[in-house]
């Protein structure tokens, strides 16, 4: 037997006395379990709080980005644009005879203006009027380009 084994035997001989002397209190394990549970709950609470905070941050960033984008691209006043184009059209010499494409644009404008007036008559909200003004603006733009081409080709 070596010295190491002797020491172990010695220790084993002493152990019962030591164990009885340092017997843990009866409520140790329940206390450990309770502490462990409390720490687990704390960690879970912290994780939830961090996740919630991150979610709120993402939502706030998304909202800020969308409002910034709206602010960065100002809404076009289609009504004002259409009216300005109409004045430009008035300033051009009256064509002796409309080009076929110009007549198509005028026909579609007449139809659109009927719809636009009907929308005003029924008190349509701006969100319904805006697309009609936008289309009017596009058609006036098209008509203007055709009349300008016709005018320049006559010159």
């Amino acid at each position, binding site marked *: 037997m070596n010295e190491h084994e002797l020491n172990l035997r010695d220790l084993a001989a002493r152990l019962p006395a030591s164990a009885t002397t340092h017997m843990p209190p009866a409520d140790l394990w329940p206390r450990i379990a309770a502490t462990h549970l409390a720490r687990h709950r704390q960690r879970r609470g912290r994780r939830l709080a961090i996740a919630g905070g991150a979610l709120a941050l993402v939502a706030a960033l998304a909202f800020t980005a969308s409002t910034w984008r709206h602010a960065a691209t100002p809404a076009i006043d289609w*009504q004002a644009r*259409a*009216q300005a184009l*109409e*004045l430009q*059209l*008035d300033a051009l010499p009256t064509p002796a005879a*409309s*080009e*076929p*494409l110009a*007549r*198509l*644009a*005028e*026909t*579609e*404008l*007449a*139809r*659109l*203006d*009927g719809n*636009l*007036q*009907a929308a*005003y*008559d029924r*008190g349509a909200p701006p969100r319904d009027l805006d*697309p009609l003004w936008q*289309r*009017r603006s*596009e*058609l*006036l733009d*098209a*008509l203007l*380009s*055709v009349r300008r081409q016709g005018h320049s080709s006559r010159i």
Partner: protein
Amino acid sequence: MNPRIALASILLLCSAAASAASPSAALGLLVDSTSAQAAHDGLRVLGTTPGSVADQLGLRPGDVLVDVNGVSLANLGADPGGRALAAATLNSSLAGLAPAAPLRLRVLRNGVMLAMNSPQRTAAAVDSVVPAEAVADASASGSCGRISTFDVAPRNQHLYGATILLLDGVTPGPSGTPSFRVSAGTHKLLVAEKIPTREMGVGPYASLRSRRDNSKELTVTVKPNTTALLAARLNTEKAADFAHGAYWDPVIWREIAENCR
């Protein structure tokens, strides 16, 4: 469908739409009828249809229509629906006029009162574009025509703007041109739609669709001295089908006789 029958149907639709308009709209006049407050001093002119009676009278956006044939349109208050009573008064005044009766308007422009007089004419904008068949056959000696993306297609037929990506395999030019002169005959187009997302009626996610990936081929036979007008037709019943591109089709919605030289 026979193209002539289709054309006749379109003309009938145009006439019906024009006759269904209010008398002021039939005159080519667009006024702010939203409230009595907006029409306090008279009816504010929002626009006139180019080529209409109102346009030929010289009315402009911003003018205030004070009276029509001696009937005042100022300070009339609101109708039971809260709209400007002046608009209803204008329409009843116009509706009561005989076709040849003169039309006298008093208009306030930049603080100055103007008088405008004209014999009334029917202003229904009937489509008078010459059908292509009528002229193209007669001028078969011409050897060219046009394909145009000029976007004046009627929206009530779900027709919208389109772009030609390739014309017979090459990018057409110059860029920004709505019409391309081509030889008379058959041509192959690759077309992309320009349908506004809000018109699709399936929500904003429609903006995620790829117009280029959803481009489509169209074979067009261009007649001599004829302009073929191209559009994107929205298939409303398949408006959400972006994966297969079934939501739209390229179409030649109109052919008009036009010298291509």
